[in-house]
C-alpha cells in the first residue's frame, strides 16, 4: 500500500475525470465535423449532451485541483499534472463549445452541399480533427514527442483558413443568395482554426507536464508554407483507447 492513500486516491480520481473530459471533448468535435461531412443532423443532440457534460466536468476538475493543492501540497510530477489539468480544462471546454457552435450553425442541406465544394475546408476539417485527436492522445499517453509536433500543423491550418476565406468570399460575391451559407461556412472555418490553436495549447501543457521543460514559444509564429496542407493528412490511424 503506497503511503498518502487519500492523496493517491484523489489523484487517480482526477485522472479519471480529466480523461473523461478529454475524450468527451474530442468526441464532441469529431461529431460536429461529422455533421457537416455526412449531413447527419441527428448528431446535434449528441453534441449538445456532450457539451453539457464537458461544462460540468470543467467545474468539477477546477474544484478538484484546488482542493488537492490546498490539502495535499503536491510537488514535482503531481504538481505538473495538476497545473496541466487546470489549464487544459479551459481548452477542452472550448472544444465542446466550438463543437456546439458548429452543430448549431449547420441546419440544412445547403450548407452540406456547399461544404463539399470547398476542398480546402474539407482538408482543414481533416487536419483539425487529427490535431484534436493527437492533443488528447498525447495527454492520455503522456507522449511529449507527439505533443511537440502539434504546432507544425497549426501553421498549415492558419494558411488554409486564409485560403478558405478568400474562396468563400468569391463564392458569396457570385450570388447574393449564397451569402448566408457563405457566412456560416466562414464561421465554421473560424471555429476550426480556433480549435487548432487550442490543440496546440494542450500540446504545450502536455510537454511541460511530462518533461518539466517548456516548448519554445517562437515555434508558433506562423511562418507558413501552404504546400504543407496537402502533405499533412491525418498521420496516424486512430487508436482505440478505452473511450467513454
Amino acid at each position, binding site marked *: 500500500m*503506497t*503511503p*498518502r492513500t487519500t*492523496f*493517491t486516491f484523489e489523484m487517480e480520481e482526477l485522472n479519471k475525470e480529466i480523461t473523461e473530459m478529454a475524450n468527451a471533448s474530442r468526441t464532441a468535435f469529431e461529431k460536429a465535423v461529422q455533421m457537416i461531412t455526412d449531413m447527419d443532423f441527428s448528431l446535434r443532440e449528441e453534441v449538445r449532451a456532450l457539451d453539457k457534460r464537458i461544462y460540468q466536468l470543467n467545474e468539477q476538475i477546477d474544484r478538484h485541483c484546488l482542493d488537492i493543492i490546498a490539502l495535499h*501540497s*503536491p*510537488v*514535482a*510530477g*503531481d*504538481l*505538473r499534472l495538476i497545473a496541466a489539468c487546470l489549464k487544459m480544462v479551459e481548452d477542452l471546454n472550448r472544444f465542446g463549445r466550438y463543437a456546439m457552435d458548429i452543430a448549431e450553425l449547420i441546419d440544412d442541406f445547403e450548407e452540406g452541399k456547399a461544404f463539399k465544394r470547398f476542398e480546402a475546408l474539407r482538408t482543414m476539417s481533416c487536419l483539425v480533427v487529427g490535431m484534436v485527436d493527437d492533443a488528447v492522445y498525447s495527454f492520455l499517453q503522456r507522449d511529449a514527442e507527439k505533443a511537440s509536433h502539434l504546432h507544425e500543423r497549426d501553421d498549415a491550418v492558419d494558411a488554409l483558413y486564409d485560403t478558405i476565406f478568400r474562396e468563400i468570399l468569391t463564392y458569396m460575391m457570385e450570388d447574393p443568395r449564397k451569402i448566408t451559407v457563405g457566412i456560416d461556412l466562414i464561421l465554421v472555418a473560424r471555429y476550426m482554426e480556433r480549435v487548432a490553436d487550442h490543440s496546440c495549447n494542450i500540446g504545450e501543457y502536455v510537454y511541460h507536464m511530462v518533461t*518539466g*521543460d517548456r516548448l519554445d514559444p517562437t515555434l508558433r509564429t506562423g511562418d507558413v508554407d501552404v504546400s504543407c496542407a496537402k502533405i499533412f493528412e491525418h498521420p496516424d490511424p486512430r487508436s482505440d483507447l478505452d473511450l467513454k
Partner: protein
Amino acid sequence: MTTAIHTEDLHVYFEKNHALKGVNMDIEMNKITAIIGPSGCGKSTFIRCINRMNDLIPGCTVKGKVMVDGEDVNDDDVDVVDVRKRIGMVFQKPNPFPKSIYENVAYGPRLHGVAETIDGKVRRRKHTKKELDEIVEHSIRRAALWDEVKDRLDKSGTSLSGGQQQRLCIARTLAVGPEIILFDEPCSALDPIATAKIEDLLVDLKKDYTVVIVTHSMQQASRISDRTAFFYLGDLIEMGDTKQIFEKPSKELTEQYITGRMG
C-alpha cells in the same frame, strides 16, 4: 557563487554501521541549504561532521575531507574549539542553559574572550561589561527576540516559551560570531506560529551567515531553502536548486520521496 563547505568522499561509521557513504557535496555561502530524507538516512550525521560533533559519540569514525575556508576540519592539527566557534549549531529541542537569558547569550563570548593584536601578537583578553552587553543585545536583536525579553534579561532562560527558547539558542550561537550555522530540525518541537517566526529569521540570517538546515518537513525545505540535498540510506542521491528539486527532480528516488510515495 562561493563555496562555504566542501566535502569529499565523506564516510562515517558507527561501529560496524556504515552511516554515510562517500558524500561529495558543496554548500554555498550565504544561502540556505536544506537537507531532506527519510529517518535514518544520515542527515544529522552529515551536519554533525561539519562541526566535529560526531567526536562526542563513542565508536564513531569519520573518514574523508570536510573543507571549510580551505582547511580540512578533520585534520589532526585543527583546534576543535576554534571549529565550533566558527561553525555554530542549533538543536532539535530547544536547550537553553538554566541560567538567566543574559548569561545564556554571554556564555559563548566569555568562553572565547576577545582576540587582540598587540605588537603583532594575537592575545586573548576578557570582555569588558560594556562589550559583553553590546554583544548580548546585538545577538538577541538579530535573533528577533529583543523586544520580547529586553526587560527581563535576568530571568531564567527556561521560563520562555518553546519558540522563544529556540530563538534564545540561536542568539546564543550568534553571540560567538560564527560564519556558518547548522540547524538540526530546529522547528520540530515548535508550533506553527513559532515555526514561521524561526523560518523568517533564517531567511534574514542568510544575508550574513551560511545556513544549513536538516528538516523532516519538505514543505519547510521548499519554503525557505535555496538549495536542497536529498539523502537516502547514507547516500547523497540528488542536490540542486530547490525549485528544480521540487518541480522537476532528476532522480526517480527523489520524486518518490517528495511526492510521498516512498515506503
